[in-house]
């Protein structure tokens, strides 16, 4: 008792130091900056990037909204970073848990101070911060994952995960006994709505009675809330779960425990659900990331919205679980072939929304990807409202 406030200050300083050391340890633990110093002038893939341009080390920054081993979205993007690191004369810097706020601007500026000339802001909400920073540093190229707009030096890339979700919908529509599918998602962004709609359309293509109930958690990764959502869906008789979450692991386990079937997302989660695993829409960013980096280094990159599909290999279907029988696998393979050849268009008209209004007219072709990505409605057969 009776201790002077002076002491308080001093001890607080001590605590702050401990804290700083703790944070530093975390930073050191997660920041593996790999540098390739081998003297090779060009990589075979670098092609046009010859001589001086590629002899210099290119510093590339990667921003992740979560941890790179989340068994989901960030892990998939990190696999792309690892592929980029294998290029000669590339140094990668990564920052995890970067919020979708002004904090992202500071992280990007720090990376630029460290010499970064290419930055991959990989989360949806990193786009506006990237555009802001981009205005200040016109010589830095930003390659944003999933963005719906571009700026002078900010381009975007993404993949049609909804194609894989359409195929997963076939597996789900065949597997369900109650004809009730569930989709636990984070936020109502258009890419999420596309996934949900494609999943329902896929299910309905093989099971006219199949409906998809959507639950929004308003958080990219809250495992406890995801588990609770699964239990609430189960209570309503839902027996197949799909998710649009950054960390779908907890949901897959909760579904397995409840005796439900499970469709994963981002990465293969079959180990978490030995009985109920169906499949998942997964990413393979390696080739695209390497191509983009080579283009920027070679000076051939033009700001654009790159959109890859299953045909490009950027979106894949995870291996099937034992809950998917042979005939269904064959049917999915056949549908996939039609999809890749362009014979099948998922969003060809007529597409009706929940109110029954026709959003894509009968006979109309599937809209362009950029216009599909503006989707702001749920299709007929999806239960649940888009929160505003």
């Amino acid at each position, binding site marked *: *008792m*009776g*201790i*002077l*406030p002076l*002491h*308080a200050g001093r*001890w*607080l300083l001590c*605590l*702050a130091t*401990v*804290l700083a050391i*703790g*944070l530093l*340890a*975390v930073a050191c*633990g*997660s920041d593996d900056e790999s540098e390739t110093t081998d003297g090779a002038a060009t990589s075979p893939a670098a092609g046009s990037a010859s001589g001086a341009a590629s002899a210099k080390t290119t510093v590339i920054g990667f921003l992740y909204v*979560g*941890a790179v*081993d*989340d*068994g989901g979205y960030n892990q998939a993007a990190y696999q792309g970073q690892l592929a980029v690191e294998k290029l000669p004369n590339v140094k990668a810097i990564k920052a995890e*848990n970067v919020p979708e706020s002004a904090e992202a601007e500071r992280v990007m500026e720090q990376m630029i101070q460290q010499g970064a000339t290419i930055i991959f802001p990989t989360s949806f909400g990193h786009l506006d911060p990237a555009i802001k920073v981009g205005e200040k540093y016109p010589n830095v190229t930003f390659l944003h994952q999933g963005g719906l707009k571009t700026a002078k030096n900010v381009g975007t890339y993404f993949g049609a995960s909804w194609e894989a979700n359409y195929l997963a919908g076939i597996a789900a529509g065949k597997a369900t006994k109650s004809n009730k599918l*569930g989709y636990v998602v984070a936020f109502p962004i258009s890419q999420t709505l596309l996934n949900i709609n494609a999943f329902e359309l896929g299910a309905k293509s093989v099971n006219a009675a199949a409906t998809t*109930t*959507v*639950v*929004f*958690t*308003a958080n990219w*990764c*809250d*495992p*406890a*809330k*995801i*588990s*609770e*959502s699964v*239990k*609430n*869906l189960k*209570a*309503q008789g*839902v027996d197949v779960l799909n998710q649009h979450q950054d*960390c779908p*692991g*907890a949901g897959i*386990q*909760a579904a397995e425990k409840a005796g439900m079937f499970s469709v994963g997302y981002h990465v293969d989660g079959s*180990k*978490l659900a030995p009985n109920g695993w169906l499949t998942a829409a997964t990413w393979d960013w390696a080739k695209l990331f390497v191509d983009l980096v080579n283009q920027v280094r070679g000076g051939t990159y033009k700001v654009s919205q790159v959109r890859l599909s299953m045909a490009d290999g950027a979106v894949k279907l995870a291996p099937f679980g034992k809950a998917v029988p042979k005939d269904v696998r064959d049917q999915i393979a056949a549908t996939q072939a039609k999809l890749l050849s362009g014979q099948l268009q998922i969003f060809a008209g007529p597409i009706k929304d929940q109110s029954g209004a026709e959003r894509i007219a009968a006979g109309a072709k599937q809209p362009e990807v950029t216009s599909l990505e503006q989707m702001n409605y749920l299709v007929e057969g999806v*239960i*649940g*409202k*888009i*929160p*505003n």
Partner: protein
Amino acid sequence: MSFVTAVSAGAVRAGTSVMYASLGEVIAQRAGITNLGVEGCMLAGACAAYIVAAETGSPYLGIIAAFAAGGLFAMLHAFLVVTRGANQLASGLALMFLGLGMTAFFGRPYVKVQITPLRDYAIPGLSDLPYLGSVLFHHDVLTYAVFPLAGLLWWFVFRSRWGVMLRAVGESTESAFAVGLHPARIQYAAVTFGGALAGLGGAQISLAYAATWVENLTQGRGFIAVALVIFAMWNPLRAMVGALLFGGAVALQLQLQARGVGVSPLLLDMTPYLLTIVVLLVWAQRGRDAFPAGLTKVFRGTG
């Protein structure tokens, strides 16, 4: 399952972790110490529990680890605040950030590891009761334990001799010292025990509810627990009710969505804070009576 049953069962599931943390904070604040680092203690408990469960294969050893980790973490707060007279708010917040950083670091190798989660036990006879069976008697041991604990802590605070000592210290360390108590010891014990309970709350998430470990697993539930202490007016049984209301709000919005009724999840996420504000407005005077006077010393430790 009926709507009321589904929401009630969800309230118990979603409320348990917050209830542990809130009960712990009631005890700490009854001793006159505010610990804003509850979130850090929960994370320490959740992470330690998961690591131990992964290494030993026993989630029950994980529970013990969580109790110890949460307690040790809070003891750091007690040291700074009680022994060194540090600002309670600053120390608590620092503890929260430390917990976030440390668990992210030590937990990283375990993100991909699966554990054997705590089992749900259906209590024979009781689990088949209509309504109550589904709501109360299909849970893991940590959920079963929290309700008797709330009652026990109520008895402890208001009916036991130790409770009188605890409350005396919380009102005025000087007077407590004058009647021959050791205020510092009691405050250490209360803060440490409070952190240990928060650790159990974290463990309930990592070992049972979500059965998983990711960085920042608790997602702010520790702060909800602190808000609930004010709502509860430092009464363990009211803290229990508050935690169930919070859990109910979570379950309500998810159940409404699962039934296709649109509600904004963002709106319902505000529920615990709105409840606290309402309580502050309506019961301001009564709240002042229940308020442990020692809490006014937050800026200079226990001074």
